[in-house]
């Protein structure tokens, strides 16, 4: 069903990176995600929208292995992904969190360096022996982390403790940390929640920049203007089910989408009140 739209948008015609089929997540009696399919191609920005409690974050958690889906399959670059966070990151899918989860008492630089963990190999013995190979790797890690901080515009905050940084910077730091894992696809869970309009604009510039560096992006947002301006394709979830998938124009004009938002008493502004227990 995605083929038609992709044809209409030639810039999103790369190879398939992520292919999730029939993802279902059941919490007791609650079907938080019900048989959702999503395909993401190389260099594509896909938006994920839906009213509060629609299951967007849960879907992310299923993709990244933080939850083990009740059923369904996630394939990444053609190979099936086991629901294990480490395997997912190694395969090349990284994420940020809706409620920022930085390592609060580490510096910005250290936070990003932790992101390099899965791409480096120094073991305990190597670290204690402190040989030239270890020092080279450590130096490279530091340099890459600094480079990523500059990429997201935090080059000057490297030595700040994450907990002391402004909210918007923390969101960008989380993106830098995710980028440090060398992903092919990055999942952003409400990257502009709590931001002012100027910061929001910067965030969309940043996402374009990430896309231009060759990554694919899936982004959850409540800010419709942000989503429709940013995304090549939008998937709307309602009560765990995929309501519609299509270009921003199609989704925007679909009466069911509008009804879904109005029906649950939500508008398209930033919505920050989270469903309790709905986050990881």
């Amino acid at each position, binding site marked *: 069903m995605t083929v038609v739209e992709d044809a209409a948008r030639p810039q999103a015609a790369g190879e398939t990176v992520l292919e999730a089929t029939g993802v279902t997540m059941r919490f007791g009696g609650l079907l938080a995600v019900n048989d959702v399919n999503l395909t993401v191609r190389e260099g594509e920005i896909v938006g994920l929208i839906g009213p509060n409690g629609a299951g967007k974050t849960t879907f992310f958690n299923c993709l*990244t292995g*933080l939850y083990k889906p009740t059923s369904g399959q996630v394939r990444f670059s053609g190979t099936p992904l086991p629901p294990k*966070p*480490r395997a997912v*990151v*190694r395969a090349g899918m*990284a*994420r940020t*969190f809706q409620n920022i*989860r*930085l*390592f*609060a*008492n*580490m*510096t910005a630089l*250290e936070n990003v*360096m*932790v*992101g*390099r*963990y*899965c791409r*480096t190999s*120094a*073991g*305990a013995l190597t*670290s*204690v022996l*402190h040989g030239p190979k*270890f020092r080279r*790797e*450590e130096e490279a*890690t530091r340099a890459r982390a600094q480079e990523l901080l500059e990429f997201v515009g935090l080059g000057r905050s490297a*030595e*700040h*403790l994450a*907990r*002391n940084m402004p909210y918007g910077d923390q969101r960008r730091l989380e993106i830098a*940390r*995710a980028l440090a*894992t060398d992903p092919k696809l990055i999942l952003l869970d409400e990257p502009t929640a709590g931001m002012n309009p100027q910061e929001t604009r910067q965030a969309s510039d940043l996402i374009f920049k990430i896309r231009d560096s060759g990554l694919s992006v899936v982004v959850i947002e409540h800010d419709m203007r942000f989503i429709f301006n940013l995304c090549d394709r939008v998937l709307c979830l309602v009560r765990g089910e995929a309501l519609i998938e299509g270009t921003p124009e199609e989704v925007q004009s679909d009466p069911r989408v509008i009804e879904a938002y109005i029906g649950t008493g939500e508008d398209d502004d930033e919505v920050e009140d989270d469903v309790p227990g709905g986050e*990881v």
Partner: protein
Amino acid sequence: MTDIETPVDDISQAPVAKPGKPIAWPLGLAGVVLVIVGSFLSWSYDASILNDLSINFYPGGLQILAIIVALLSLVLLLAEKGPLVKLGSWLDVTLALRALGDGLTLYMVLVVVAISVESDGLINVNPGGYVTLVGAALIAVSAYLLPLRHLRDMSEARMPAWFEILSIAVLMAALLFVAAYALGLPDAWSFILCLVFVFTAAIGLFRSGAMTFVSHAGQRHRKVLTLAAFAAAFLFPFTQNGSDANMSIAGSVLVFSATAMGLNIVVGLAGLLDLGYIAFLGSGAYVAATLSNSAFATIGWKPPFLVVVLVGACVAAVLGLIIGSPTLRVSGDYLAIVTLGFGEIFRFSMFNLDGNNGPNLTNGPNGIPGIPDLELFGFNFGSEHTLAGIELGRFSNYYFLLLILVGGVILAFSRLNNSRIGRGWVAIREDEKAAEAMGVNVFGLKLLAFSIGAFLAGLAGTIKAHQDGAVSPDQYIFLESAFLLAAIVLGGMGTIAGVLLGATILKMLPEKLRFFSEYRLLLFGLLLVLMMRFRPEGLVASRRRQLEFHEEDEALAVAVEEEHLVIEEAK
């Protein structure tokens, strides 16, 4: 640090001293003079008390301590108004002087109490003691009349490199001197007074900001700091003139420190609560004992000690893996309970493997006595020898060996801390789920921390067995694990200096304060409760922990961050 109350934005402004009560300064000066004069006079009628303070114009050790405090106060007063006024724009004279005045007054009150308790009443206190007491009180009063000021931040202070290095060296020398002096004190009263002195001087130095300066200088000259600390530790046996009693205390402090540093990796870095850690020390010690040449050793194999060290450490590490692998997958509380159980299982196993139930490995409750001294590279650790005219006995030999061990453990700790592995540990401690989602091998790293900790403890255990000459199950009770944890919490989790300090305090105090023995636990409990209330980050706080516990303190957060920046720039 206590002096961070200084608002940071005041740094740029020129420090302005508001006038306090004009009487304060002369009052303080009078106090200093009285203390010095009083200390030269006799304090006590009875010469046998407090190491003889009865002779006029010949001050005893405790009187010299009072004079030192008075001289420190004098420097502060001269910095307030006088030739050292330039220094006064950096040092927080008022707060420091308050600490010194209060401390010295307490000190003198204790002296008077000690003299009257030990002899027959106040009648035995000589005028010198009262004169000094009045002087101390005057210093305290004057300090409370001095104005409080905003000052420049001491962490901004820059001095020529030689001066910074010198100040580090002086601090280390002072530490060495005080440690040697305190251990040499024969009676508990003198020891307590010496402690009061140490705390008075330390709080004074911290309040004044001088410590901030030295610690920053230490950051800038890290190698010098490390070398100076080791030099001081190395020189310690030479101050003891062959005193086996003190050197044996020092040796056990080192074993305790090495073990605490190992536990510091597990608790301080990875954030895993291990309540049975002493069992790993025990397994190292038991391995060394059973493989030793003791007549009671139960295993025929007698490998050289270097092999024993490896075997002991590896056995401990394997035990760590066995305990850790099923429990580290679940959350922290379970680990605490399982390790608690493991510690007891270890002790009971050692208690019961006596041949009646199962094989005879450990001689049960009797343990394995008669472990011979170590022989390494043809050197027998039991032999005495004289170096530079100073006699170094058996315990000094072990002290040097243990010093190397502690050095190695510290090196391992700090290198791990500043590596990919260490960052992974801290990330897990901070937010396990997020760490996992970033691709950190959570379970593997926890297991690694656990087994490295066990390995280091096992290593220390093998030396401990030879140093003690015997192993028995009752050395490895739960209380010891609790003390190790207490040392870490008291000193400052995740820090090196703090944990060493905590270990030293917790091991040395009970040895010197034997008359407390029944109240020992009560006192430590009280100490910990007070610490948790007033300084939860420990005596030496790592920057991180300091922030964790004082989240509401915005000024502190900013200040710590600025400090951090300054240090980074200095690198």
